[in-house]
């Protein structure tokens, strides 16, 4: 990502993310307001295997009018790299608790855990009887 400035990266990321996940008709927030920007930037700053993603962003940054159509063209040139970018945006967006709340989705069961019935200690009787307890 040497050739693009940090601020520029964030602007481009925001634009790309809002095309990948735009605001929805039922009030769904667009991806750019979420934690996704920081998440993606961090990924781009980790040295391992992000070269392809960096090249992809570089390519997108050179696109004059960044529209869904333009992105689909970039996608068609390298579907696996683009699929990775999309997966990262999804991961960042749906991994943001505020977004999950705004979308009205059930959150992850942890750390509270699933509700469980009390343990039936009768089940252990045959095992305990082996040790004479």
């Amino acid at each position: 990502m040497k050739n693009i400035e940090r601020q520029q990266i964030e602007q481009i990321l925001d634009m790309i993310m809002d095309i990948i996940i735009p605001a929805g008709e039922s009030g769904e927030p667009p991806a750019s307001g979420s934690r996704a920007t920081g998440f993606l930037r961090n990924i781009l700053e980790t040295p391992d295997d992000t070269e392809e993603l960096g090249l992809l962003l570089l390519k997108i940054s050179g696109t004059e009018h960044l529209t869904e159509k333009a992105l689909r063209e970039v996608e068609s040139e390298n579907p696996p790299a683009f699929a990775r970018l999309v997966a990262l945006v999804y991961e960042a967006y749906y991994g943001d608790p505020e977004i999950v709340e705004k979308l009205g989705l059930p959150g992850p069961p942890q750390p509270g855990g699933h509700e469980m019935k009390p343990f039936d200690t009768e089940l252990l009787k045959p095992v305990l009887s082996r040790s004479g307890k």
Partner: protein
Amino acid sequence: MGKPVPWGRDHHREFSRRIGKQATLLILVDDLPEQENRVVLDSDLTDSNGIPAPKLIYRYSENTKKMLDFGVERAVELMKAAGAEEVLINPRIREVFHLIGTARMGLNRETSVVSQWGQSHDISNLFIIDGSIFVTGGAANPTSTIQALALRIADHIDRNRRNILK
């Protein structure tokens, strides 16, 4: 696995159509032991002490492929009966290995290592009680069965200790 939710204008519509309305079925089958599926010592690869590395030789048998196909067909039936609008099949066979069956039990000392009680055919006071005495892979994870075998064989040793250790 499956089909990703499309990105772009239709993303939210398709996401809300699918969220909370999906189910995944995984087909597990009992992959029977085959003579040619085996673990050998690698002729080239060694560890830092020069000890040959184990090498897995494995391919799916026709029987296993047929069982998987059968399972997929039943899974599709089940999904449709449950009212599925769309059923996606992941055609990739995914390997899940458990390291078992290298000292299989049996009555014939030519084709097995231990008896049905985990007792070595060759050394009477040696018992093997772990995943290695499985005769087939079983269609599911092995630990509960290993534990059940441990309890069963320990009871057997306890009951027969005078004879076994003679």
